[in-house]
């Protein structure tokens, strides 16, 4: 119960203090919105193309929305030494890091709703499997958040976290089959796609948002779960090795 109080408090404090900071607004809200707008307003393809681009846009919204948060909630606090205060609290490191990421996961899910709501508003979307879609968005948000966490604990400065995030985020937009199938990539790049979590996220989102998927949904769920677990474990290892040295 005490740990739960601490966790909720950390999450609430982060959301209240950091989520509307300029880097988060620009990368976490404006950028995904701009992408959504860009794809939905594109000319010459008609409304029937919405179904095709929606999974990619949702994936981008979640990816950017989540990864941007951790640079501030973790790296910024580490830099200002207030993170030490959390390390001194009598809760396990696992729970502490979950508390630090829970807000970003929720933010990522909320971000995913923006393009979905716009698409529904415009019309021409059908066949959404809401249950699997929620599962897909949640898992995508978890995996992206933990990717952001891993980056945030691997660097020392906020700007490094943002730059390093882009090093992963932008290539993933093109390598993970968000807007065109992985099969259309040069053969040499295709194996790379399958070691990136967003490939599975995009495929799962396509399946649940009524688009054509390539991989078995069960496999995508499992792979996203595995990526999430590995990235979280890696982040904890980094904190123990570098911050409690």
């Amino acid at each position: 119960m005490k740990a739960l109080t601490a966790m909720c408090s950390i999450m609430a404090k982060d959301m209240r203090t950091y989520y509307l900071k300029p880097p988060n607004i620009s990368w976490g809200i404006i950028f995904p919105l701009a992408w959504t707008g860009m794809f939905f307003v594109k000319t010459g393809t008609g409304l029937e193309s919405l179904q095709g681009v929606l999974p990619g846009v949702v994936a981008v919204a979640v990816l950017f929305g989540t990864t941007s948060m951790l640079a501030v909630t973790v790296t910024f606090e580490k830099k200002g030494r207030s993170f030490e205060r959390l390390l001194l609290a009598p809760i396990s490191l696992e729970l502490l890091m979950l508390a630090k990421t829970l807000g970003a996961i929720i933010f990522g899910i909320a971000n995913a709703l923006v393009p979905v709501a716009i698409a529904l508003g415009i019309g021409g979307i059908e066949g959404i499997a809401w249950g699997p879609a929620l599962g897909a968005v949640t898992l995508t948000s978890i995996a992206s958040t933990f990717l952001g966490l891993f980056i945030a604990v691997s660097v020392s400065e906020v700007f490094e976290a943002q730059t390093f995030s882009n090093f992963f985020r932008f290539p993933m937009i093109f390598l993970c089959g968000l807007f065109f199938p992985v099969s259309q990539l040069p053969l040499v790049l295709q194996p790379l796609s399958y070691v990136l979590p967003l490939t599975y996220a995009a495929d799962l989102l396509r399946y649940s948002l009524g688009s054509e998927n390539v991989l078995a949904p069960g496999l995508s769920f499992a792979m996203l779960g595995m990526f999430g677990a590995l990235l979280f474990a890696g982040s904890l290892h980094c904190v123990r090795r570098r911050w409690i040295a």
Partner: protein
Amino acid sequence: MIEVRGLTKSFDGVRAVAGIDLTVDRGELMGLLGPNGAGKTTTLNMLTGLARPEAGTIRVAGIDCTRDPKAAQHLFGVVPDDSNLYPELTGLDNLTFCASLYGMGRAERTERARLLLEEFGLGDAAHRKFGGYSRGMKRRLTIAAGIIHRPAVLFLDEPTTGIDVASARQVRQLVRDLHRGGTTILLTTHYIEEAERLCDRVAFMVEGRIVTVDTLENLLSPVSDTHVLVLVTADPTTGLTPELERLFPHLRFEVVGAREIRVESRQPIAVGPLIREIEERGATVMEARRERPSLESVFVRITGIHADQMKREKERKGGGGGAS
């Protein structure tokens, strides 16, 4: 309450803490006194779980913290040398947040936070953002945050460094009050006067080692029966001491500056004859003052490090202010 055996830590091959042993009894206020780089903060970090010891054992209230650094964290509060609260939160929000980290319920933490803000003279600033506080206010709020959950043990790292004299006085009074209330306190400082004024026992720490640890009474006893007189003259006293030593063989003379002579004796010093002899040799005595034996003289005698040297080092590293 705190028991440390053979605690060791190195950074990049440099030994920061070299196998120290330390015991702090329940309700005791123990000071770790030493210059910059002595290993005081590293020791505190290992005790609180912010750094991993290479070797040695730590026990707090019987709990083995070496195996599980988290196990005893509910028992202690930590006040770091830097005021590391959240600049975007108000004083009240900072305290309630810190209380929530220890699982305190909403009503209890708000009541406790308000009480501490009043006690620490920050009631009027409760709804102001921490980032806008003065250094002294920040330090006081950081101490309040350290004791928000009523810890049995408090670790204080350089509590008065970097704050003005008036705030330092307030902070010292707060520490005294906590000590009187039964809290076990381990504080680090490079201010000898601070250790002397506050602590029951003091450990001198130099280059990662504890060179002496004892009660203030025991530390001062070798110098307690020494009488010290300082004479300040208007003219330089160069070459005067050999003659004075010949005239007063039971006294020990030391030229401190060009115009200052320090006289030490195991017996009370007769001031009149001494001043007459000096003035007959052409130096006008402007001031004669008796100095009580202090921890500073003991520290200098044992470590060879002067208090001014420690203060200067700390100020160079950006931690002005301090004890007075």
